[in-house]
């Protein structure tokens, strides 16, 4: 079916193509730009074009792809770097040069690569959608090939196959490949959702100890610019104890994406000793790439994350930043001349966002296993104002808040997580796990919180009477609190200290608290703080 372009306003294009559905993918103009149908009026459909469309003219042809925007799911995704439409960026580089030009649509995964396919299914087996019919080894994981629909297997192949060779044939003669496509805006199905129970170790002492996250949980990280959202997210992406990491840069800086790509190429996974990039999928839609593709990027990424979850794996999804995604939503809404809600964002911001965030969780998969999809979502509130709509909309649907503090960041306290205003609703559940390994975990956590809390109160007093005016006991407390802040809560992402295992975390805090108790006891026996500190400074370490 063919139609033509009838009007153009920025990325919003009207076409006279009939029989389209909302969400259908269309190809616009002679240079074949990808677009998505967002509105239908009588005989005119409004299309959001995902690519730079300068030069597009009235009367140019439009064709439909016959369905919605989809991603290809199959072995070979790990280690991949895609844009918001799942176009493989390394291949675009090879074919199109250093700058991304419009109108290229290569297949996202390597179709020529040979995989060793094995199966325990046989001809005549009836399988439901989402069940595995075969498997291949992809790096460190066992990649299950999942049924895209219900069907009876008729003929099965094993051995060295590419994604172009059918692995099986269904009873209705339809070939079954090692990959299938899935519409990005439709959550992948599962049997049931389970409550998250296991902690997700991030390697950040402040998070694991004070505000732990669970596998299947959702944390949001709001912070003004310069508070270290990106570094924190990237550090977690490197070290979190999960099987697969999907990192999406929606509207991020190109140079920071480049830094991430460089580092992932060099670093190895401390657990599997394999290159870190082999467990990672990166979706990079930098800030000057088209707005509409930025909007779709989180859906493209989360669909790939769900796919690996459906194999029974633990997947971590990181987005930097959701605010940039919301900005894209706002720009598109404004181009469609929709009635704006708060701060110009469309009124459906909240529902769109929660629909997306609810794709996280622990699930019983269709093939009977258990997989988890956790999310850590950076938010960049304009002017570091946490009352703004995106932060608030996220807050309603996330289980942990890691609030980044501009004051801490100015002092180069990184990660700049504010320990009085952050929280985790997963704390109790995670604690139950940590206590199994380290029984004093809960007690120490309470001590640590208490010390930090009391320091806050004392600081106000000190501002009135001066440090000199404080009692020795209080000065000691302030000294310990400072040590907790500088030696425990601060963690340099550019050194060995970037990852702290729970064991070393508990050791550091034990030492700090023990020293505090020891000095307190000496004070109680009549010693003077200044003498004690002098001794401590000269004592061999």
């Amino acid at each position, binding site marked *: 079916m063919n139609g033509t372009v009838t009007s153009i306003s920025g990325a919003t294009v009207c076409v006279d193509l009939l029989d389209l559905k909302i969400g259908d993918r269309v190809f616009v103009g002679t240079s074949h730009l990808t677009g998505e149908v967002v509105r239908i009026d009588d005989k005119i459909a409004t299309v959001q074009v995902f690519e730079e469309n300068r*030069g597009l003219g009235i009367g140019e042809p439009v064709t439909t792809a016959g369905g919605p925007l989809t991603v290809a799911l199959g072995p070979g995704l790990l280690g991949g770097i895609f844009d918001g439409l799942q176009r493989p960026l390394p291949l675009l580089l090879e074919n199109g040069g250093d700058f991304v030009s419009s109108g290229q649509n290569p297949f996202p995964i390597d179709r020529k690569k040979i995989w060793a396919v094995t199966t325990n299914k046989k001809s005549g087996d009836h399988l439901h959608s989402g069940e595995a019919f075969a498997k291949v080894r992809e790096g460190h994981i066992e990649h299950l090939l999942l049924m895209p629909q219900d069907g009876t297997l008729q003929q099965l192949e094993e051995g060295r196959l590419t994604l172009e060779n059918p692995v099986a044939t269904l009873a209705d003669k339809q070939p079954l490949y090692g990959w299938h496509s899935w519409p990005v805006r439709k959550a992948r199905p599962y049997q049931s959702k389970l409550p998250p129970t296991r902690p997700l170790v991030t390697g950040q002492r402040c998070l694991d100890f004070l505000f732990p996250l669970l596998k299947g949980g959702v944390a949001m990280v709001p912070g003004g610019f*310069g508070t270290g959202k990106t570094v924190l997210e990237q550090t977690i992406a490197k070290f979190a104890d999960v099987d697969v990491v999907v990192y999406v840069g929606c509207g991020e800086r190109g140079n920071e994406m480049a830094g991430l790509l460089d580092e992932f190429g060099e670093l190895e996974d401390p657990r599997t000793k394999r290159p870190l990039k082999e467990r990672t999928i990166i979706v990079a839609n930098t800030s000057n790439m088209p707005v509409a593709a930025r909007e779709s990027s989180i859906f493209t990424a989360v669909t790939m994350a769900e796919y690996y979850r459906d194999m029974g794996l633990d997947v971590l999804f990181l987005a930097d930043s959701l605010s940039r995604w919301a900005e894209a939503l706002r720009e598109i809404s404004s181009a469609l001349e929709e009635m704006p809600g708060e701060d110009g964002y469309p009124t459906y911001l909240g529902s769109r966002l929660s629909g997306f965030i609810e794709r996280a969780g622990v699930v019983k998969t269709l093939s009977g296993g258990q997989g988890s999809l956790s999310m850590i979502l950076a938010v960049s509130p304009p002017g570091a104002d946490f009352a703004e709509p995106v932060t608030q909309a996220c807050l309603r649907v996330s289980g942990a808040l890691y609030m980044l503090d501009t004051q801490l960041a100015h002092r180069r306290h990184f990660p700049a997580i504010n320990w009085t205003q952050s929280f985790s609703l997963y704390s109790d559940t995670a604690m139950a796990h940590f206590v199994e390994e380290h029984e004093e975990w809960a007690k120490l956590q309470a001590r640590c919180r208490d010390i930090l809390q009391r320091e806050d109160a004392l600081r106000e007093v000190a501002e009135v009477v001066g440090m000199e005016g404080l009692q020795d006991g209080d000065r000691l407390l302030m000294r310990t609190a400072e040590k907790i802040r500088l030696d425990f809560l601060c963690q340099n992402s550019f050194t060995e200290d970037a990852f702290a295992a729970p064991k070393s975390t508990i050791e550091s805090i034990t030492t700090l608290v023990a020293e505090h108790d020891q000095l307190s006891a000496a004070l109680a026996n009549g010693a003077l703080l200044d003498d004690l500190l002098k001794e401590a400074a000269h004592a061999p370490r």
Partner: protein
Amino acid sequence: MRLAEHQYRSVSAIRGPLLFLEKVFAARLGELVRIDAPDGRTLTGEVLKIFGDQVLIQVFGGTQGLDTKRTSVNFSDAVMRAPLGAGVLGRVFDGSFRPIDDLPMFIPEFRQPVIGAPINPVARAHPEEFIETGFSTIDGLNTLVKGQKLPIFTCAGLPAREMTEQLLHQARLPDGGPFVLVFVALGLTHFEYQFYRQTLENMQSRFVAFVNLADDPVVERLLAPRLALTVAEDLAFRQEMDVLVIITDMTNYCDALREISTAREELPGRRGYPGHMYSDLASLYERAGRIHGRKGSVTLLPTVTMPEDDITHPIPDLTGYITEGQLVLSRELHQKGIYPPIDVLPSLSRLMQHGIGKGQTRSDHRDLSNQLYRTYAKGCDLRRLEAVVGRDGMLAEDRKLLDFADRFEADFVHQGSKRRTIDETLDTAQALLDDFREVAR
């Protein structure tokens, strides 16, 4: 592709810098048009919107003197392109790429669309090569690296102009390699521009300037940085030069954006600035960078004047989200007579970690900068305490930290018009820390 040039005399309305045209056949988005005014002037414009056979055109240059009867519009079938070539060096142009240095236009080798395509993130090389600016607070604590974009956030009345002028003539590569400056003046007053002129004249062929003054057409304020960046990309990635683009002042750019956006009847966002300002700014700032396997680089130093000294104002705020750090000027330091008045605590260079240390600057650089930051931050904290309890009520160590903060500002931040090499900067830091060994950590 149309073979013949199309000409129309069907202007139906003129609003501000916008022209509405009817009964147009097969226009293209972004298509360049030539407008012949009744008084004989020739203007250029660009197609912004097309509704069936109606076309909305943004006019570069003023629309004064245009009418609906005699004004004719010629469609070119091409998008806006910038003329490029080696001849561009040493020249001064206006916001529409016309020479304003009394020399004839150079002969372009070819032309490129002014809307640059985004660099493929996979093709980007991570910025990690040091650029020496001669300012201790930048080189020592907020190091600029090739391919980075690092804005200067200033307040009205602070000497951002003096700093920019100094950067123009003192920025250089540590190995003294070829280095070109692209200077973009947006909405500057004649008085302000005078300030830079002498410096540019002394630079001979090491620069290109695009000048849009306060009384020049507003639309050209949006065009000038795009022309400049297209030139910069060509100098960097085709002619293999390291290019530093200095843009002053982005606040004027954003105000122009707001003006045009209102004329287009777009829905206003925060403080009346258009909702697409983030994407628009990104389309400029993101053109900074390096590319694997290519020699040159584009580094960007834009100046942003914070309205009401407010760093959370949409202009500095959105800029901060796109750029890799910021240099923040402080009114307080300026009052104390410190120049350059860079407040290092809220300042940040996100990419400095890879650009400093052995092989780049000096092996002790990272250590020195960390110590300075930590000690100065402590001293600044104590200033609040001092204000309450007075110096006498404080511990000896705390008094020492206060002294450090003062000395840091006087010796390290303050350098007057003198240029410091990176070695001089680090030596100053070392000397200062030596004097305060017992409190510096």
